[in-house]
């Protein structure tokens, strides 16, 4: 019988991958038990983006789910002249609650601005977030080639359920979805419709 060293390597790899996956799952899904070694299996919150093929100027949502929270990323695709951004969004308050801003940037912090950009996130009511951000003179506007992240919002699980997270472009919205440059001009950014996604909280 011929010895196949490649087979051994592949076996070893599979074992290693399985071990790492198990460790990662354990690290990410630790429950609140009394012992630190307790591991409670869980299923991550899932997010299915409505927009799968963004084109230039699209601003849309992506998300990374964990057991107890989901980080919602506001992404922008191929756009120049980004200096001030504003939008609001809705999420299913029955399943999620706003925890806070998880990560600001890196789009607005491009080029090491002399004045730190300002990020304002307001939660006027459960299920609603209002967001605006800006750079300051003399820092110039920035260009995103490919994809760039404007801000990441963390929503915590409050109960099982599902719903849509999306920009609020309804007539009742009190914040316009817009991107402007340092000369107050509107940039050709598109926030929808259908730039959000469906969240499933198990």
């Amino acid at each position, binding site marked *: 019988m011929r010895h196949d060293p490649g087979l051994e390597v592949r076996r070893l790899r599979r074992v290693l991958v399985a071990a790492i996956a198990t460790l990662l799952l354990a690290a990410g899904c630790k429950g609140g038990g009394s012992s630190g070694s307790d591991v409670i299996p869980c299923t991550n919150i899932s997010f299915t983006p409505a927009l799968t093929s963004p084109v230039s100027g699209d601003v849309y949502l992506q998300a990374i789910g964990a057991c107890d929270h989901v980080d919602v990323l506001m992404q922008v695709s191929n756009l120049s002249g980004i200096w*001030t951004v*504003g*939008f609001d969004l809705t999420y299913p308050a029955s399943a999620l609650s706003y925890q806070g801003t998880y990560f600001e940037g890196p789009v607005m912090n491009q080029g090491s601005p002399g004045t730190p950009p300002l990020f*304002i996130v*307001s939660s*006027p009511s459960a299920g609603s977030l209002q967001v605006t951000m800006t750079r300051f003179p003399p820092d110039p506007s920035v260009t995103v080639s490919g994809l760039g992240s404007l801000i990441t919002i963390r929503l915590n699980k409050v109960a099982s359920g599902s719903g849509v997270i999306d920009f609020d472009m309804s007539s009742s919205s009190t914040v*316009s979805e*817009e991107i*402007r440059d340092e000369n*107050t001009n509107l940039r050709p950014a598109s926030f929808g419709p259908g730039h959000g996604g469906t969240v499933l909280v198990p």
Partner: protein
Amino acid sequence: MLGRRNRVRPKASVVVAFALLAGFLHVAPAAAATVIRLSWDSNIEPDLSGYRLRYGTVSGAYGAPLNVGKVTSYDLAGLSAGTTYYFVVTAYDASGNESGFSNQASGQPSTVVGPSPTISSATELSTNSPYILEAGRHSVQLTGTNFQTGVTVNLGSTISAGTTSVAGGKQITVTIDVAATAALGWRTALVTNPDGGSGSMSQALMVTRNADINRDCLVDGGDLNLVAVAWNSVTTDVRFNSAADLDGNGLIDGDDMAIFIKYFGKRLSICP
């Protein structure tokens, strides 16, 4: 008799000089209390123990003594308004010796005044902030103490305040109308109780420019953009935009940003 000071030589070498001050505005616990303040010169005996006050409504006829302790002034409450009272005071020492009466003083608690109101904070309710837009109708809440039903609120010219609603003597809610001509900047709030007692707070509320700078009926990123574009500019700069100078101080800075943030995403009662 008011303000008059006489000296007498009572027995036991206790000397008391007496003066009466009537109509003193006293901070008393009851809004309807009548109060009169009595004061006298201190006795110099080393073994002085205290003073006794006697008073009545007929000259020379007094009621039971009131031991007021080792003090040289005393606020006597609960008197009838419009009635003349007559007062004398005596001193007593550690051995129980009591001086003769001081001179008699008289007076009327002619003014009935409750405790003066105080203001500790003022808030525009829709934004929970001290900012009020330059024009329009707003609900304002003042917190403090000793507010009486019927208290009036004054925020200066070009701002009219309606009928007040008082809760627990500690909170006033009032609707105000800010005229379009109202000057920008801080306003002093003055409250006046029906009994005449008043209190004020400087820099209570600030009249600001409308945070909807671009007048699209929203306070959002478009307005933030205008504040940011003019950021750190003064009136002589090309970049200066008076509409973005929300506090009207000639400098576009953090104060203007603070006002913007308070109004960000709020639906304004007035759409310009």
